[in-house]
C-alpha cells in the first residue's frame, strides 16, 4: 500500500545529483533573467510613461508584443527562427544565441522585462502627486526626482505584483526544456521517458512548489524592508 513511498525515496536516492543539477540551472535562469529583466524594465517603464510618443510608442509595442504572444512561441522564434538569417549567423550575437542556455536567458529576460515594465508603469502612476510636487519644490531636477523619489516608491508600491511576476517567471523557466536545456523539468522529463512513469515529473512539481514558496517568502522580507515606513 505504501509502495509509492519507496518509489519516491528510490527516485531521490538514485537521481539526486541529476535533480540538484537541474535545480541549479532553474535557479540560475530565474535569478539572471529576473535581474536582467528588471534592468531592462526601468528604462522601458520610463519610456512608457513618457509624454513623447517617440519613446512611448516603441515601449508600448514592445510590451504588447511580448505580453501578447506565448512564451513558447518566443523561445522557438529566437532559438529556431533567428538562425534562418545569415545576417544573424554572421553577427557578433551568434555565439551567444547559438547555445540553448544563453538563448533561453535572452528570451526569458526580454519577456519578463515587458511584464515588469507594465507593473512599474502602474507603480509610477500610483506615486502620490504630492510627493512629486514636494520633490520639485525642494529643487530636485526631474532626473533626480525619478531616481530618489518616484522609482523607489513605485517599486515599493508594486512589490507584491513584482513578486507575482517573478513566480510566473520561475514557472516559465520550465519551458526551456523544450529547447534541450536540462533544467529541473528537463531532467525530470528525461527520467520519466526512461522509466515510463510520471513520478519523476511529480517530484519536480514538488520541488517547484518549494521553490515558489521560498521566492514569495524572500519577497515578503524584501517588502518589509522596502516599505518599512508602513509597518506599525
Amino acid at each position, binding site marked *: 500500500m505504501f509502495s509509492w513511498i519507496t518509489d519516491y525515496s528510490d527516485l531521490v536516492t538514485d537521481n539526486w545529483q541529476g535533480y540538484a543539477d537541474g535545480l541549479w540551472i532553474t535557479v540560475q535562469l530565474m535569478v539572471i533573467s529576473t535581474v536582467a529583466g528588471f534592468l531592462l524594465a526601468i528604462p522601458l517603464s520610463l519610456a512608457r510613461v513618457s509624454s513623447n510618443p517617440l519613446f512611448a510608442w516603441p515601449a508600448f509595442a514592445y510590451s504588447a508584443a511580448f505580453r501578447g504572444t506565448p512564451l*513558447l512561441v518566443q523561445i522557438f522564434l529566437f532559438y529556431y527562427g533567428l538562425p534562418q538569417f545569415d545576417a544573424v549567423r554572421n553577427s557578433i550575437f551568434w555565439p551567444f544565441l547559438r547555445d540553448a542556455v544563453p538563448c533561453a536567458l535572452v528570451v526569458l529576460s526580454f519577456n519578463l522585462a515587458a511584464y515588469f515594465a507594465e507593473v512599474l508603469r502602474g507603480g509610477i502612476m500610483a506615486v502620490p502627486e504630492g510627493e512629486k510636487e514636494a520633490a520639485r519644490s525642494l529643487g530636485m531636477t526631474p532626473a533626480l526626482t525619478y531616481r530618489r523619489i518616484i522609482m523607489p516608491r513605485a517599486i515599493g508600491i508594486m512589490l507584491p505584483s513584482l513578486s507575482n511576476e517573478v513566480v510566473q517567471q520561475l514557472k516559465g523557466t520550465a519551458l526551456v526544456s523544450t529547447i534541450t536545456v536540462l533544467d529541473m523539468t528537463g531532467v525530470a522529463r528525461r527520467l520519466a521517458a526512461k522509466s515510463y512513469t510520471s513520478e519523476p515529473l511529480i517530484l519536480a512539481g514538488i520541488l517547484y512548489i518549494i521553490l515558489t514558496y521560498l521566492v514569495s517568502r524572500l519577497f515578503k522580507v524584501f517588502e518589509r524592508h522596502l516599505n518599512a515606513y508602513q509597518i506599525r
Partner: protein
Amino acid sequence: MFDLHGYGEQLLLGVIVTLELAFVSLFFGVLFGILGASAKLSSSRALSVPVSIFTNLMRGVPEFVIILVSYFGLTNLLTSIAGSYVEIDPFVAGVFALSLVFSSYASENFRGAFLAVPKGQLEAARAYGMSRPQIFLRIHLPQAWRFALPSLNNQWQSLLKDTSLISVIGLEDLMRKAMIASQVTKNPFTFYVATAVVYFVLLAISVPLFRALEKRANRGVRRN
C-alpha cells in the same frame, strides 16, 4: 517573407484546434473555479481546507509540468486500470491540465467575488422565500460574476497562451502545425512569426469581447 509555402490552410486547421482546446478548457475551468470557490467558502472545514491547500499548491507548479504529469500520469493510470496500454488523447489531457490550472486561479477570484456581494442581497433573497439553489443562480452568481470578470479576463489571456504548450504532447494545434511547417520548409522564422501574430490577434480580439461581457454584467449598476 510571408510566403507560407502552402501551409496556410494547415495553420488555419491548427487555429481551430487551438480555439476548441481554449474554449473547452475555459468552460471546465470556470465550472470548477465556481465549485472550488464554493468549497473554499463552505462552512465545512473538511471541504474548505483541502481545497484551499490543493489550489495553493497547484499555483506553485509550472503549467508545463502539470501538462506533462496529466498526459503521462493519465496514460499510466488508464493503462494500469485497463491492463493493456492505453494512450490518452492529447486533447483530453490538455483540457484536463489547462482547466486544472485555470480553476486553481479562478477559484480564488470567485471566492473574492462571492464575498463581495453585499450580505443584504442574500438576506433579501432568503426573505422572499427563495430556495438555496435559486439564491445562488438568481442573486449570488450574477452579482459575483460582475466582480470576477476582470480577473477572468487575465486568466483567459494566460489560458490561450498556455494552449501552445499542449503541442509538446502532440496535439496538432497551431503551434504544432507551425513546428511541422518549419521543419519541412526550413523557414522557422516565417512560421513562428506568423504563429505569434495569430496568437496576438486572438488575444486582441478577446479584449473588446470581455469589455462587452463586463458591460452586460454591470448593466444593473448605477453609474455616477
